[in-house]
């Protein structure tokens, strides 16, 4: 029987010798068809898509939904139709998901990056720090965005939410920078 190595080597040759090059001008055709204005697809906020994309364990997925719902309720104190959809999706998924497996901080953080996208979708000017923070540092900034009164809403890595003044925000950012450079 053929060894794995030999088979992989043959597959490489097949790759190098398979398929014709893309027709010239195809890229220009595609570029012409891309609309100038980006209209976000509503499905991008479908919670089921979020779960599929995250590919997290069931309970972790449920945790992400709960966090999102709590944040939506707590942060905005209002409910738009999109929030309502997520709320309904969340209820269905929690019923479906709450059986087994453990959630982890990293899963919740991954969910937070989705929440960040959601805020952008709502037109907020958001800064997300999630890719660079130390999850063990409870005072590390995870997200912030500007409020109408000039202050900032901040979410920390332990998921607590606070409204801070611009000066306080600068201090929090400076603290993170100092910690990183140490």
């Amino acid at each position: 029987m053929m060894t794995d190595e030999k088979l992989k080597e043959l597959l490489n040759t097949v790759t190098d010798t398979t398929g014709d090059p893309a027709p010239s001008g195809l890229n220009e055709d595609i570029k012409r068809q891309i609309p100038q204005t980006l209209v976000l697809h509503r499905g991008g906020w479908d919670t089921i898509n979020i779960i599929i994309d995250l590919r997290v364990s069931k309970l972790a997925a449920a945790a992400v939904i709960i966090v999102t719902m709590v944040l939506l309720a707590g942060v905005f104190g209002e409910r738009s139709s999109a929030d309502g959809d997520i709320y309904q999706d969340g209820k269905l998924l929690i019923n479906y998901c709450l059986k087994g497996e453990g959630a982890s901080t990293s899963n919740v953080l991954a969910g937070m990056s989705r929440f960040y996208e959601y805020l952008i979708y709502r037109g907020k000017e958001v800064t997300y720090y999630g890719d660079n923070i130390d999850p063990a540092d409870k005072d590390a900034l995870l997200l912030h965005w500007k409020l109408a009164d000039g202050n900032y809403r901040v979410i920390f890595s332990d998921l607590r939410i606070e409204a801070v003044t611009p000066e306080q925000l600068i201090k929090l950012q400076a603290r993170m920078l100092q910690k990183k450079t140490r």
Partner: protein
Amino acid sequence: MEKKAETAEQKAESAHPLSEQQRGETEQEYSQQRRSSLAARLRAGDHEAAAELVDLYYEHIYLFMRRLGHSRQVSEDLTQESFLQAWRHIAQLRDGKALNGWLYRIASNASKLYWRKHAGGEPASLDGIDVADDTQTAPDKVARYEQINRLRGAVARLPMKLKQAVVLHYMQHLSISEAAEAAGIREGTFKSRLNRALKRLRKHFT
């Protein structure tokens, strides 16, 4: 002027010679940075970034479609469709690291939808070009040519999911995690799918 700059660059390179590995790491870092910045611009809805994405990936996606067994015309259409879908679903792109997996996932879905709509259609065989290797003797060449043709046929006849795994990992050179993301499955599942595919392919050579 350009030549001067080039010479200066070459001098700088020879003054600080990088090992092959360091060079590889630097290039990887550069390409990672480029992808991260591209992803950030895409997410911000930058139309130029969308054009850059097309230039960077259209050949790969077209070949991916061809290797999945679509005809030339269908591959062109599906490549276009993939980029339009990608633009519409740009908010789902997480970051630069996820760019490969995300785009291939959209392309895979476009291909899957096509097969579903055209359920009766037979996937085309993988078109090949002649393999020339001057170091081989004539009988060796014939044997190798036969092997390659057999393998090509065997890949084309694999069930779609297994074929997709082989194409993503071995032909499009996606890492296991990127390929798993593209196939929409966990890494473990992808690895076992890949093993099953290799097992089937090996059988053709017993």
